């Protein structure tokens, strides 16, 4: 399936913060990462936070070295993501429920005599 490069920029981590310092990358170029897996730890003036990956894909480029200050909106990471995939995507939070072909059960019933 075809791939497409998607660049993720540093989001506003809350309350109008304008920048963050990259503390530690949790991935390297070439890694394949799941959506919501830890991507990078950054420090703002308020706290250190781990940003989860917004995408599932292969890491193509990391745009900031550790200890560098990145302004909000500047490129952080580029992913190669698979496109043309019709699998349903969950929203920003949560998972798409999976359906068992035959649901598991343990309880057996006895039909009523009436």
């Amino acid at each position, binding site marked *: 399936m075809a791939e497409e490069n998607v660049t993720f920029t540093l989001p506003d981590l809350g309350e109008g913060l304008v920048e963050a310092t990259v503390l530690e990358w949790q991935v390297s170029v070439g890694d394949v990462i799941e959506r919501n897996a830890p991507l990078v730890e950054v420090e703002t003036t308020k706290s250190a936070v781990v940003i989860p990956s917004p995408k599932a894909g292969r890491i193509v480029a990391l745009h900031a070295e550790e200890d560098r200050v990145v302004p909000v909106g500047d490129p952080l990471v580029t992913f190669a993501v698979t496109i043309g995939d019709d699998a349903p995507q*969950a*929203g920003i*939070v*949560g998972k798409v429920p999976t359906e068992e072909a035959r*649901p598991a059960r343990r309880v057996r*019933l*006895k039909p*009523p005599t009436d």
Partner: protein
Amino acid sequence: MTELIDRADAAAETPALELSMQQAINRALRVLLAEDPDVLVFGEDVGALGGVFRVTDGLQKEFGDRRVFDTPLAESAIMGMAVGLAMNGWRPVPELQFDGFAYPAIDQIVNQVARMNYRTRGSAPMPITLRLPSFGGIQAPEHHGESLEAIFAHTPGLKVVAPSDPAEAYSLLLQSVRSDDPVVYMEPKARYWDRRPVRLAEPTDPIGTSRIVRPGRHATLIAWGAMVHKCLQVAELAAEDGVELEVLDLRWLKPIDAAGLAASVARTKRAVVVHEAPLTAGLGAEVAALITEHCFRDLAAPVQRVTGFDVPYPAGPLEPQYLPTIDRVLFAVQRTLEY
């Protein structure tokens, strides 16, 4: 309206479309925006993004940012704005992004939306339909899975509905938005991706009617939203044991179809009500009371309730332990059969 009816007729004649519940709701919103220039769709991320569940996808592009627009992240303001718009003749269809975010808007919903018609002796009706992605099943974080139906059903002035499949979602939304009363339309998140052949149809059943989704003779399972699907799975498994379960989709949680409940349980003599909300003072208690009032002499066993537990809705990984399971419903059925 003529064009709409033509469209509905065309849908009935053409083969069913493969649609998810998200897409069915999206199509209903398109019909509503097209048929009535007073319909407005707004909420957090419903415009440019198309909704976090893609339900409002493409609507802003098609109808413009004066009819479909993003709001600040302020649920009380979203509902307060709906009240003001309704008083000025609009037909607002606000979305609160997740059920847990309805709590900050409860003041507007209970004190204004629900009461305005009563307070003004009918001179300011509130034709508002609050779209509320509801219930659990997607393992989301806290505040992203709640079952608020009992709170809303308990509030005089509100109607409450929870569709269970794409076709129902379509027709019930048309009905809700066209109603001049405020309706809380609870979308079962866990069923958003439920794709099936759908015949889009105009609503035919009156507001406040339930429907039998599977006939049976040994007991009636009563559910709404995502639990209807669970009960259908249970009925399928029970059939392997020679037990024929009827599944009743209550769908309207206010007003409740007491006559429909009574007609089913009078035949099957046993009833199990299944919901995701906690047990105590949940809507299952209301259903059990109605059945007891209407079918006391017909009942072969006390009405059973299979529900969430009396704890806060758990986040993510604990959800499967909280939500009613197939085995818990089967146990309850067995209790009614053995009573």
